């Protein structure tokens, strides 16, 4: 997991590379470095955030450069291990995202041939492999080097002998070409490019490319020229910036009335009551489906759990939620089962591996993702875009709510195909779905109330979240949000499970956040709250506006508006997000960049 940028053109490469790296730092930020060709190759690297590296780089000329922001996988966080890595003669510089699996064998071989290594990274072998194969043409040497490597990679390299040229290669790690005027770019992700161009070309696995200021050539390992389509990105630099909020996470929480609207737009028809997916996934959503396996990691898997409850409620189809990292080795498969993979970035390595496994065993695969053109959209049988816009904050917020809505729409579609849903019922669902953005906005307006409750959690050592039904995975998500940004230990439990073990951990200093909706389990969860109160713990209830009974039971209450049983989970999620945000903010944590975490995890 790292961020990569390469530039060749007419601008000051130092500025372009540093500016672009700042937009990639959600991909990792433990160390960074740049290499710029200014007559000869100059390399600067430092530990810490990019701003720190910037301070150490003198103003140099040069209009060709590469840069890297690192999230360590092989070798510790040291200046030596930061990229770019150099060949022995210091004429070739390489940056890399991914893992070279056979690097220790390669390293030994290269050492025998007389190469000296300066770092512990797998990446450094690439620089020496290229040097070994270099006969005056960098792309030929890169092709030869890649042939020896096993693993995943996005590589960008420059050579002092060929200024004005950058070369790249990708397999299973993201790399995109930014098409400019009299300049060209390579980057791990689009936000890095948006300041300079909105035209991009996506590379496929196994592609190589050579960029000069005027030309772009894409080719395969046999140097056969390939055509890659130029696409236009419709979002703005503005979309990728904080637009006045203190943190990206807060901005993204506040984006939700809009993203909820976006994900519904064009999918629920105003005229004839039906659910449509413009992405043409009809061949996947058939009534013959006998089961659904949702594979995902982290927050996406919790969205999957919520989806399980929602889909099973309105269809006859059993839904199994599996962690991608487990499913790929241990999952069960059958041909009439639909595998739905959820990955915001479309690049999550574990989820991609699970997708490939599912396909090998003959399952149809459907991906829910936020990034068109991502690897997941290309290797699956179909995809549905969640339309959330770029998410920069490491803690997922708006992408989570959108994923839940997509899953619910899939459920509605399947229920229609199975004739499980009357037109009246469907009309009612659609009617209430349209109200969601308004409810979300109402929750956001209550942010101050949530902040005043957050102070009761800020000094806790440990917090429990409980719920029943779809509120159970929401309690898992609430706990995940709290732990990842505020560093408070938090656990989510199905409310009925408390007495089967977790009660042993409950003390009067363990606040419990209970999610309560007025469904068939209402009395049960009130009883659970009673049990908790009996042990002296404080209870913070997240309850419906019209629920008056709860006042007798909970110590503090956070309210959300709803008038239906359709997806109150969206409003509840927003309450949980704001709660976690305010606790972390009161604790002065680094909200957008929690320690040890990175936005999209492209290693397994």
């Amino acid at each position, binding site marked *: 997991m790292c961020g990569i940028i390469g530039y060749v053109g007419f601008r000051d490469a130092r500025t372009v590379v540093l500016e672009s790296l700042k937009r990639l730092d959600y991909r990792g930020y433990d160390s960074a470095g740049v290499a710029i060709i200014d007559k000869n190759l100059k390399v600067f690297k430092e530990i810490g955030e990019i701003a720190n590296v910037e301070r150490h780089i003198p103003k140099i000329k040069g209009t060709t450069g590469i840069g890297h922001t690192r999230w360590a996988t092989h070798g510790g966080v040291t200046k030596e291990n930061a990229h770019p890595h150099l060949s022995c003669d210091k004429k070739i510089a390489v940056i890399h995202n991914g893992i070279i699996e056979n690097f220790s064998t390669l390293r030994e071989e290269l050492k025998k041939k007389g190469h000296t290594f300066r770092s512990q990274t797998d990446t450094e072998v690439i620089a020496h492999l290229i040097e070994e194969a270099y006969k005056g043409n960098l792309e030929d040497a890169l092709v030869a080097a890649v042939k020896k490597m096993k693993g995943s990679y996005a590589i960008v390299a420059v050579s002092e002998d060929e200024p004005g040229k950058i070369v790249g290669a990708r397999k299973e790690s993201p790399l995109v070409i930014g098409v*400019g005027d*009299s300049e060209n770019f390579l980057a791990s992700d689009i936000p890095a490019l948006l300041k*300079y161009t909105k035209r991009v070309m996506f590379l496929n696995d196994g592609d190589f490319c050579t960029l000069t200021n005027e030309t772009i050539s894409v080719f395969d390992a046999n140097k056969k020229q390939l055509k890659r389509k130029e696409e236009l990105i419709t979002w703005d*630099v503005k979309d990728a910036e904080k637009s006045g909020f203190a943190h990206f996470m807060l901005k993204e929480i506040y984006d939700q009335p809009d993203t909820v609207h976006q994900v519904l737009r064009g999918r629920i028809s105003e005229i004839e009551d039906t659910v449509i997916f413009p992405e043409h996934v009809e061949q996947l959503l058939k009534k013959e489906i006998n089961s659904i396996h949702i594979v995902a990691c982290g927050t996406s898997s919790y969205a999957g759990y919520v989806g399980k409850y929602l889909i099973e409620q309105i269809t006859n189809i059993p839904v199994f939620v599996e962690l991608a990292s487990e499913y790929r080795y241990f999952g069960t498969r059958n041909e009439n089962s639909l595998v739905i993979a959820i990955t915001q970035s479309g690049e999550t390595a574990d989820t991609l591996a699970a997708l490939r496994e599912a396909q090998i065993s003959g399952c149809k695969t459907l991906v829910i993702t936020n990034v068109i053109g991502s690897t997941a959209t290309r290797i699956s049988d179909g995809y549905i875009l969640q339309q959330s816009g770029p998410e920069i904050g490491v803690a997922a917020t708006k992408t989570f709510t959108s994923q839940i809505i997509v899953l619910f729409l899939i459920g509605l579609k399947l229920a229609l195909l199975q004739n499980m849903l009357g037109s009246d019922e469907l009309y009612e669902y659609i009617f209430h779905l349209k109200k969601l953005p308004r409810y979300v906005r109402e929750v956001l307006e209550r942010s101050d109330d949530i902040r005043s409750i957050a102070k009761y959690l800020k000094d806790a050592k440990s917090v429990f979240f409980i719920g029943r039904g779809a509120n159970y995975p929401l309690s898992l998500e609430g706990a995940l949000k709290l732990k990842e940004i505020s560093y408070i230990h938090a656990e989510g439990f199905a409310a009925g499970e408390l007495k089967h073990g977790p009660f042993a951990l409950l003390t009067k200093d363990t606040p419990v956040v209970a999610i309560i909706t007025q469904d068939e389990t209402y009395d049960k969860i009130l009883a659970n709250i009673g049990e908790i109160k009996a042990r002296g713990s404080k209870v913070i209830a997240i309850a419906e506006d019209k629920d008056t009974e709860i006042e007798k039971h909970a110590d503090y209450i956070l309210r959300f508006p709803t008038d239906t049983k359709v997806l109150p989970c969206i409003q509840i999620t927003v309450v949980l997000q704001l709660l976690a945000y305010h606790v972390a903010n009161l604790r002065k944590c680094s909200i957008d960049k929690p320690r040890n975490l990175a936005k999209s995890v492209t290693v397994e």
Partner: protein
Amino acid sequence: MKCVILAAGEGKRMHPLTYTRPKVMLPIAGKPILEWNLLNARAAGLKEFIFVVSYKSEMVREYFADGKTWNVKITYVNQGTPQGTAHAISVIESFVNDFLIMCGDTIFGINDIKNMIKKGTKMGVIKAENATEYGVVELKGNQVQKITEKMDQPLSNIINAGVYHFNKQIFDYIRKTEKSPRGEFEITDSINMLVSKESMEGVLLNEWRDVVYPWHLLDANEEILKKIDKKIRGEIDKNTTILGNVIIGKNSRILAGSYIEGPVVIGDDCKIGPNCYIRPYTTIGSRCHIGNACEIKNSIIMDNSNVPHLNYVGDSIIGQNCNLGAGTTIANLRLDKKNISVILNGKKINSGRRKLGAIIGDNVQTGINSIMDVGTIVGNNTFIGPGAIAKDEIKSNSKIL
């Protein structure tokens, strides 16, 4: 000599028209503003162009491509996030030596461009009636002494017209230029440094039309239409009247009973009439329909928009893909005959015009018998319901019922 045209700006004061296109792509007399500058510069003898682009640059690139259609060579340079005019010029350093540079949103005359490309560092200046909104230029003979931005009490009425002839030296001064109080790198600051060391000639221009607010498009449209010649490529039915200089594009049909008083430009594939009245200084885009009992006067109607039945449109601009319901009328004159004020981006501005109708964005639909008051701004994707009255500034995606 290369001709650099600054075409990166969004043109916030042109909202809502610039939500969907960059300012330089706004159409006047059937062509984008930028094309008029390209044509005039070509007529003055320039063949090599550099367009500095940024906001919605893909639209500029798609329209002009490499310039072959115009027999010129166009190179594009993306400014990135705009940080002022000096920043825009700094990005082209490696592309130019001796060069002419002009603002793409101001229309310059052919003879003036010829004077500007004569040898030596020059700056175009123009006499303005009201100099408060511009950079005022102090001259000694024809030598530029100093530029002062936006003075409340201007020292003279000579202003900076936005066209310059520079050589490589300007980049040294740009490098020394610091951010202005409004947070931009301004080329006028660089020029003030330049004129303290070197000489710069002020060239008084004869023609100049800068386009700041939407209604300025109507002025520019009128000025250009005054110079057009008659050219009819479409089909004209019997019993139509066409007076004066009128351009009608290919495949457009003018049906019986239409009365067209030039100068008027009508694009390709339009259906005009039957029985409509089109009055002078009107530009109609391509694939438009003007129907029965409609009157249009001194207006710009962009592509794919319809004024289909019983409508009056005067001194107005209608964006793309709009449709007026039967009986929708636009007021263009106050009953007290005073100047019309407009609320744009929340700010009230005196348009200086006695006659001004509505400025309508893209994808706007109106219901039957709806009314728009003088100076109404209608944002994109807006519905005006049947019988509704629209006035002041209406945000995009609104429903007025």
